[in-house]
Structures are given as C-alpha cells and as structure tokens.
C-alpha cells in the first residue's frame, strides 16, 4: 500500500500531475477518490474491493474532473484495457495522463464490505473469469506485489452457453423478464468507461431511434444498441452490471459479444491502443456464412 501512496505522493510533489485518481476507504467499502494533495495520499488503497473502473473518470467530458488538472490514475488490468480503448478512440492523449498500474489477482463479487474478503470461488467477481491481466503492461509504473490467478469461479461462458442452448422463444422470454425491470436510468452507460459520448444515441431526437420509455420495447432497443455499440470494445470490467439498480445480467450480453467477435474475427480486446477495433475494420475474407 505504501508503494502506491509513495508513488502518488511523488507524482503530486514533483508536480507531474495535479490529481491522482484511485480508491479510498468509504462508508460502505472502497470507492473512487480524487487526491489532489500529497498529504491526502495516505487515503489511497488497493484491494479486492476496488472494483470500479477508474478509466470511467478519464472521459474528457467530465469537466468536473478535467478541471482538477493532469491526472494520474491507478489501473488494474480491466482499467488499463479501458484506457487503451479511450486512447484508440482518440479520447485521450497518452502523454496527458500517468498510469499507475496495480497488480490485481481478481476483485470481489460483493465489494460493499468494510474489509477486503479473501478471494475464493464463491467471493470472486464473475467478471474476473478468464481475465488474463495480472499486471497491466501499458502503464508508466507498476506497484503492488505479484498476484496469483483469480480463483476459478462460476464460468460466465457456461451461463452464456446455457442461454445459447435454449430456443429463441425461451431466450426471448428470459430477456423480456429481465429487461422488464429496466427503468432506462442508464446507470449501465454511465458506469461504462467506453460509453463516453457527448450525447448518447438514446438522447438524440429527430429521429428518436430508441424509445426512452422503459417498456420492454424501449428497453430491448436500448440494450441491443448499448451492446452493439460496445461489441469489440467492451473490456469486460462488469461495471455496467454492478451499477444496475435492478440486477439485469448485462455481463451475459457483453460476454456473448466478446465470444462472437473472437469467433468471427479472432479479436480479443487489447491493452495496446494500436490494435484496431474489429468493428470499423474488415477483412475481405470475413465469414459470410449468414449471408445468402
């Protein structure tokens, strides 16, 4: 911990950054914190409760954050991939941020606790399933001790496969039920590090492609679009699902699309911003089995 705090302190002391975005101890567990003075660096923590994807706070349109000055941000693997996404899409300049990598061995499924839980198959977050980043590579500095692989947990792929095995009508019933709870509050969007549009398509009128009314028709249109816009971009950080106040299993949709872009185009989301996203690129011999 002191390594993280010392690093942050040095960055602030030397004037290399004006704010360090990390995690602190909050009333209900870890939460994001914006440290602007070296003295406050002792608040910084990192443990299995630090689930928040801090890349979300690098959205250049969050003027209340850009107003704080040049930022250093603490990133675990999924955060680093999201930062790469923002760089890939020209939302950030690499020189404009400092990335403090933390070694991460997985985060908790239920992080709102006063002490970090021991990670086990039962307590680890489903999002960590298949995560291949113990230490982010694209960072400016790396802190923390070497971490073991996260415990093997309920396989997200198994849950996707179980849905895949159903008939379309059964899947439709499943999703109608799940999506009927959606109030289109857009917490999923706001929690997503890559949903960073100035004006979301759902807020565009003339025409209003996506009905903002939270009946299942509007909800289907919204979630189809959210997922399609994240296809090949989603880093699998699981923040959308965690943010959802009514418990819609958005992780299943995101995981499915990760599988699809891999199966169709051999693409896995990369920590390297130079690797182009699969939608927006093409190969002349892309699969077209589905085309008559």
């Amino acid at each position, binding site marked *: 911990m002191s390594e993280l705090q010392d690093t942050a302190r040095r960055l602030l002391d030397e004037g290399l950054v004006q704010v360090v975005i990390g995690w602190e101890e909050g009333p209900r567990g870890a939460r994001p914190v914006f440290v602007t003075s070296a003295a406050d660096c002792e608040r910084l923590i990192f443990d299995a409760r630090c689930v928040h994807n801090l890349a979300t706070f690098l959205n250049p349109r969050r003027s209340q954050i850009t107003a704080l000055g040049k930022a250093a941000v603490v990133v675990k693997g999924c955060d680093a991939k999201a930062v790469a996404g923002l760089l890939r899409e020209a939302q950030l300049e690499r020189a404009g941020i400092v990335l403090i990598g933390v070694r991460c061995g997985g985060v908790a499924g239920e992080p709102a606790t006063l002490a970090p839980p021991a990670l086990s198959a039962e307590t680890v977050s489903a999002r960590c399933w298949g995560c291949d980043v113990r230490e982010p590579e694209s960072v400016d500095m790396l802190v923390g001790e070497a971490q073991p692989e996260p415990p093997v947990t309920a396989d997200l792929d198994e849950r996707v496969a179980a849905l895949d095995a159903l008939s379309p009508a059964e899947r439709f019933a499943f999703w*109608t039920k799940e999506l009927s709870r959606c109030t289109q509050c857009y917490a999923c969007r706001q929690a997503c590090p890559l949903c960073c549009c100035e004006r979301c398509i759902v807020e565009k009128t003339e025409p209003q492609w996506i009905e903002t009314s939270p009946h*299942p028709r509007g909800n289907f249109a919204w979630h189809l679009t959210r997922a399609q816009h994240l296809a090949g971009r989603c880093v699998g950080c699981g923040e959308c699902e965690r943010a959802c106040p009514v418990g819609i299993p958005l992780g299943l949709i995101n995981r*499915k699309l990760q599988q699809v872009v891999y199966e169709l185009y051999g693409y896995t989301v990369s920590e390297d911003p130079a690797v182009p996203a699969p939608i927006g690129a093409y190969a002349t011999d892309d699969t077209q089995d589905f085309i008559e």
Partner: protein
Amino acid sequence: MSVVNQPQRSGERAPDDSGRATAEFEPRITAFVCNWCTYTGADLAGTSRLHMASNVRIIRLPCTGRIDHVFIVKAFERGADGVIVSGCHPADCHYTAGNYHARRRFGVFRELLSFLGVDPERLTFSWVSASEGGKWADVVNETIERVRRLGPFDSYHGLAGAATPADDPFARFEMPAGATGGTAAAPADGHDAASQAPSGTGDAS
C-alpha cells in the same frame, strides 16, 4: 392482408390485425437494400417480369454500409415480421468497402439479436447484384416462406403493451399491475403462445 381490396384506406388507417394469427397469415417484410446492386437487381427482376410475393416493402439506401442496426430494430417495432438486408457482393461495392463493414456489423448484430431471443430466421442478409434479378425473387420468396412458418412477430410488436395501440390506446406496460411475471407472459416467438395471447394487453388493466 384483408385490406387488399380497400385501397381507399385513410391516412390514419387502423390496421386490421385480426387475421394475422390465423392460417391466412401473410408476413410483413421490410427490406433495406443498397441502391447500386440489390435495388437495381430488383429493378431487373421487374424488367424480367419475375413474379414474386408482394409482402416486401423496400427502403432504398445508398449502400449496405449506411444500414444501421437501429433500422432493423425500428422495423420490428413498427410491425415487421421479418427484415431483409441486401447489398453488393464482396468486392463489388460501389463505394469499395461499405458492404465489408456492413458484413462485420451485421455478423455481430445477428448473433446479438439471436442471443436476446429474436429468431435469426426472421432476418435475411443477402448479396444480390444488379444482374441477379432471379436471385432477388428467390430471396424475397424464401424469406416470406420462412417467416410465414415462424408466424407473426407479435411477441416483439407487443412489447410496449398492445400490439395495436390504435385499437387499444390505453394498453400500456405498467410495472405494478403487470408485475414482472405478467409481462413475461407476452413473449413467445410466434407460434402457440402468440396466437393464444396475441399481446400483453389483458394484463395491464
């Protein structure tokens, strides 16, 4: 299509869905096609007098690259039972690569729709060149037959309450009365459930 002999339908026509779940079911297909290949291929089908089913309504766009997935979603919302997306064969795109980009996007979107329970059989993607009038007729006829077998897509049309709001303007989705279980009664992709309970209207009031 009980309206076929009433061409005087008024602008605020009240669509008659009464026969839609019966054996006479005629699917409604919306086709999004590119201007240069498929639209011209459909022109050729006409010039060649290739007869085909009349249930397809074509929306002309410059290129499959222009076709957004929200078009398909909106078409289903507005009563389509099936959708055709058709453009130029690979390497034939008038704009070089629009069809390649469309192929990627729809390769993903088709899987996504399917995962959310929209039977991919309701969607046809095809390459029809300007010289393939015959192929266009086949695509139209085959799509209609396939969708006819699946039945009307009332499960989707009814997602906002009544399948026909004009007939039942107060049908609405309300969380308390309908509760989560109530709305889940509506889904069922065509087939039995849909014909028994064409919409979720009853649950709401």
